[in-house]
């Protein structure tokens, strides 16, 4: 009996360092897509696009995180924010302030001013406020349009 207990303890002692090593070297799910610190609590990855966003030859990944913010008969509402990550180092280059409110997820990254760097175009509902009729139809809201042009000086951690 004592022999069995000793063997079990020995196995446990050997197992702990092995587990620790496994934890360090094992694959971390999701890391390839986005660094965990980019994800705010309650938000989920929605979509992303690779684009050249700065002077660095490495591409950047522009990521949209969002979550449900209510359902109505003719539309849904979401909250969202953007994160721009260096596609090679996974270093966070930019995180949008606060959250936007929208009724459809949109990730538009284009180089409209032809300077070789992309701009992120954002559509959202002003202050997240809107009006509907007594049955929840016919939404009226002020739509805002913004542009995020990433430069190294804007880097945020």
């Amino acid at each position, binding site marked *: 009996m004592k022999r069995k207990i000793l063997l079990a303890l020995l196995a446990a002692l050997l197992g702990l360092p092995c587990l620790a090593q496994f934890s360090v070297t094992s694959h971390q799910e999701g890391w390839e897509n986005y660094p965990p610190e980019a994800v705010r609590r309650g938000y989920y990855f929605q979509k992303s696009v690779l684009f050249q966003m700065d002077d660095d030859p490495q591409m950047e990944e522009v990521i949209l995180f969002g979550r449900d913010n209510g359902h109505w*008969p003719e539309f849904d509402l979401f909250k969202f924010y953007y994160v721009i990550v260096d596609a090679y180092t996974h270093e966070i280059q930019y995180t949008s302030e606060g959250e936007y409110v929208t009724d459809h997820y949109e990730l538009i990254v284009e180089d409209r001013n032809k300077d070789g760097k992309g701009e992120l175009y954002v559509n959202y509902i002003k202050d997240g406020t809107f009006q509907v009729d007594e049955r929840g139809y016919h939404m009226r809201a002020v739509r805002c349009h913004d542009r995020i042009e990433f430069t190294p000086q804007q880097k945020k951690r």
Partner: protein
Amino acid sequence: MKKFLTTLLVAVSLATTALWGQTPDKIRTMVIAGQDGSHWWKGACDAIKQILENSGLFTVDFCFTPGYNGDMAEFRPQFDKYDLIVINYGGTPWIEEVQQAFEKYVREGGGVVFIHSSVIPMENWQAWNDITGLGAWNGRNEKWGPYLYMKDGHTIYDYTPGDAGYHGLQHQITVVNRATEHPILKGLPVRWRHYKDEIYTKLRGPARNVEILSTALEAGRDEPLMWTVKYGKGRSFVDVMGHCGNDPNMIYSMTCSGYQITFLRGCEWAATGKVTQAVPADFPLEDTCMLRPDFKAPFNAFPE
């Protein structure tokens, strides 16, 4: 003699008037609700009551369980006083005594209708799983039975291991009626547009004595939306449409006329085994949603 004839005439007149004025028996219905963490069950109950009572065929009583922290022993519905039980419930298990009474009620010929999230709770109650036929979430997996769906017109019993239950964002969907000769669906358009709803997929369970009534195409599979189950002498009608969001009054899926009409027909069938309701003119088309926002048939639903 004259006095006798006058008395007879009055008696016959009174009896005729009484018989003439008598309304046909309505289907006595009990709606069970009271707990559901993901749905506005009070709004759904209000809609259910209006849909049923506005049809003129049903009377509705509610029987609510205590809240989540309440004593479930207080919940003791009298099933046998009703022709039909409508379940709009997604909460904690009923006590053993109530479970047995419910099983007995259905086994001996009672009618029961399950709405939307009612296929989620009480996953460890075998008879509940048998009466609903299919379920979702709450840890259900291959141990509960196969996935059931249709593909290329065939019914598939899929024993692939995996969790039960999935839904994406709410959306409109085209419903395809499969059992077109079933009393619930007979005479209705085969394909119709259902208004915005939360569509459950990846349902699995014992799937015994199940007849799939209608499906919707989701992720390459024709997933069942409505089905019936035979349990003992009883009839069960399950309709996983009818999501009512946890935003108050978000009961728009139930405003769909197709939902209301199939629900009414399913309720009548579960209670009596037949459907006497005519097909109304406001049933949705394949590409057009139709709504009954006041939960009653419009004045021109049944043209002469």
